[in-house]
Structure formats: C-alpha cells, structure tokens
C-alpha cells in the first residue's frame, strides 16, 4: 500500500515524470497526431478518458487475479481488458454523444495500441496504489499526455512557417524538438519531494 498524498501523485504523473517526455510512453501518437493543434487536443482528451476507464478496470482485474493467485495472467488480461474497454467506450460514446464520437473519430480504436495506457495499468499495479490513488494517477497521466501533445502541436504549427533545410523535415526535427521539450520539463523536477 502506498502512502503518497494525492497531490504528489497527480503532479508526479502530469509534470515531473511526464508520461511522454520522461517515461517515453505513447510516443507513436505523440509524433503521429501532433501536426495540428485541434486534433492533438482531441487525442489528448480521448487518451485521458480511456486512461481513467482502463485504470478502474485494471484495478479490478488485479484484485481478482490476487484472489485466484495467478499473477502470470496479468499482462494478457490487462491487454484484453484495455482492448475491450476501448471498444465499450466507443459504443457508449456513439450512443450518448454522437458529436463527441465524430470529434474523436479514428483516434479511439487506435488508443488500444497506445503503450501509455498499458504502461499506466502496469505502473499503478507495481506502485501498489489503492482505488482513489490509481484514479488520480490516471487523471494526472492523461493531463500530462495532453499537455505534452498540445505543446508539441503548437510548436509544429509554428514550424510550418519556418524555413528548414530539406533533410531535417519530417520525423528528425520533431524528435529534436521533443528532446528540447523534454529538457525543459526537467525544470519541474524541483516540484517533487
């Protein structure tokens, strides 16, 4: 059982150990869908939402696996849970809010293979968070992902206007920008305990 206060957990997941920039989780969407500010912020929303849902599910599954004593099934059941949670969330949103469904579009199914979601489930288990702590952790991770991808999209929109040599266009310049962003996020380290 972990005794960290909720505020520390939130700040840790959102800024100090940002999921994208210091734990390298969810790099694929971070590079793939950060071209436009609008799509990036929607992607951030979708990821945060799925993180909350799958965090709750993973907590339940972990407790169930503890009872039947089968820890080696953890990985397989987590990935199945996440895939079905994404599917459920998709059906739920389509039914109750078609506008939001259209806004999220293709991003929802893609989230299944986002390693940030599985990483979150694995980390919350290894850190032994209880239910409320896990929920706050998931929220912090989602907020952190959204901040990172939105800042990146803002920089890339500016970059469209800049004059660049041909060879740095594409992924190379994005990675170097991400490196600078990651260095600047290290400034938050002072916030931690």
């Amino acid at each position: 059982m972990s005794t960290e206060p909720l505020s520390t957990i939130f700040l840790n997941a959102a800024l100090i150990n940002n999921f994208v920039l210091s734990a390298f989780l969810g790099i694929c969407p971070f590079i793939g869908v950060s071209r436009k500010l609008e799509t990036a912020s929607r992607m951030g929303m979708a990821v945060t939402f799925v993180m909350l849902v799958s965090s709750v599910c993973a907590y339940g599954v972990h407790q169930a696996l503890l009872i039947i004593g089968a820890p080696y099934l953890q990985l397989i059941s987590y990935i199945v849970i996440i895939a079905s949670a994404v599917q459920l969330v998709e059906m739920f949103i389509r039914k109750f809010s078609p506008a939001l469904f259209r806004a999220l579009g293709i991003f929802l199914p893609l989230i299944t293979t986002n390693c940030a979601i599985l990483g979150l489930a694995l980390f919350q288990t290894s850190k032994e968070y209880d239910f409320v702590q896990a929920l706050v952790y998931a929220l912090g991770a989602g907020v952190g992902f959204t901040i990172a991808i939105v800042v990146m999209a803002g920089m890339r929109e500016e970059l469209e206007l800049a004059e660049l040599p041909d060879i740095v266009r594409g992924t190379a310049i994005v990675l170097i920008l991400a490196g600078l962003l990651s260095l600047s996020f290290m400034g938050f380290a002072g916030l931690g305990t």
Partner: protein
Amino acid sequence: MNTVDQKAVPDSMDALLKGLWRENPVFVQVLGMCPVLAVTNTVINSLVMGLATMFVLVMSSIFVSSFRKLIPKQVRIATFILIIATFVTVADYVIPAISIEVHRSLGAFISLIVVNCVILGRAESFSSKNPVGRSVLDALGMGIGFTIAVLSLGVVREVLGNGTFAGYRVLWSGFEPWVVMLLPGGAFFVLGFWLLLFNWMRERRSRTKTEVAS
C-alpha cells in the same frame, strides 16, 4: 521497393535482408519508438531489449503464420495480440531468471513489448499472409534490424554519456561525460540525429543517381 535488388537476390533472402536496411523498422518505418527511446541508456539494456523483441517477433510469427487459415478475419487483431502477449509473458519470466539486475533496469518495458507496433505490424502485414518459413525469415530480419537500431542508440548514449562501453571504460580518464545523453532528452536528440544522418545519406545517393542518369 527497389526492383533491381529483388531480382539480384532470391525471394527468401530478400525477406530476411529487407528488414536490416531498406525497410528497417526503426529508422525507415519509424515504428516501435517507445522502447527504442526508453531503454537505450546503456549497451547491455539495449541488447537485451533487442533480443527480447526479436524472440517475441520470431515466435509470434511462427504461431500467427501456422494458424493463419484457422483465425477468423474479424477477430484476427485480438488473436494476434493474445499470441504476442503470451510470448512477452514468457520473456518477462525468462529475463529475471538470467539476470535480476537487467530485469530491474528494464522495468515495465519488457511487458510493454506487447504494444510494440513493429510486432503487430509484421503479424498483420506479413505472417498472416505467408508460409511459416518466409515469415520466420521476415521476423528474423526485422528483429535484427530492430536490434541494430536500439544498439546504435545505446552505444552512442553510453559512450558519450558515461565514457564506457558495456561497463568497460573506452574514453580517456579526463573525459567529461555528457550527462544530457543519459537524460530522457538525450534519447530524443540521438534518435533525431541518426534520422538526420540517414536522410542526408539517402538524399546524397539519390542525387548522385540522377546525375549519373542525366
């Protein structure tokens, strides 16, 4: 796809070789970035990560390819993920049996091989359509290509960031280590510069080709 290369080497050889350079999963297809960036702070970690990924790639390609006619189309992705997750679990239990230390420094990233898009990508685009032999060659090629990529990051980061290679000191004793290389930012920089280098080489080669043609 280069047609000249395909004629020069036999088909099965091409399945193996294309993963090394022409369709390298990391440098050309830019897939599976998370482990590439996260665990490449030392040479040993990179090597273990590369080998573990190669093991999962090869084993899952054998299974996907031998069951490819039995798996219904609608649930194929879920089935592939289950097969992959099984072998990742195997790797996750084998690595601590060999070295607890390496397992601790890799942490959750062994489990995260499940969501490495390289593996699912090969299962979907190659193993599910080809016989076992060719799928294994393809998986082996991709696995070696991936290992080369993680190693090329790991070597640069450990040598410049710590002055050592796999724990042995290689640079002179007064060398001031570039700490930034071991920080998360360094991973982005090194991969960015590798991609830059490859872009530059590719552009130079295509320019000499057009000069020869004209």
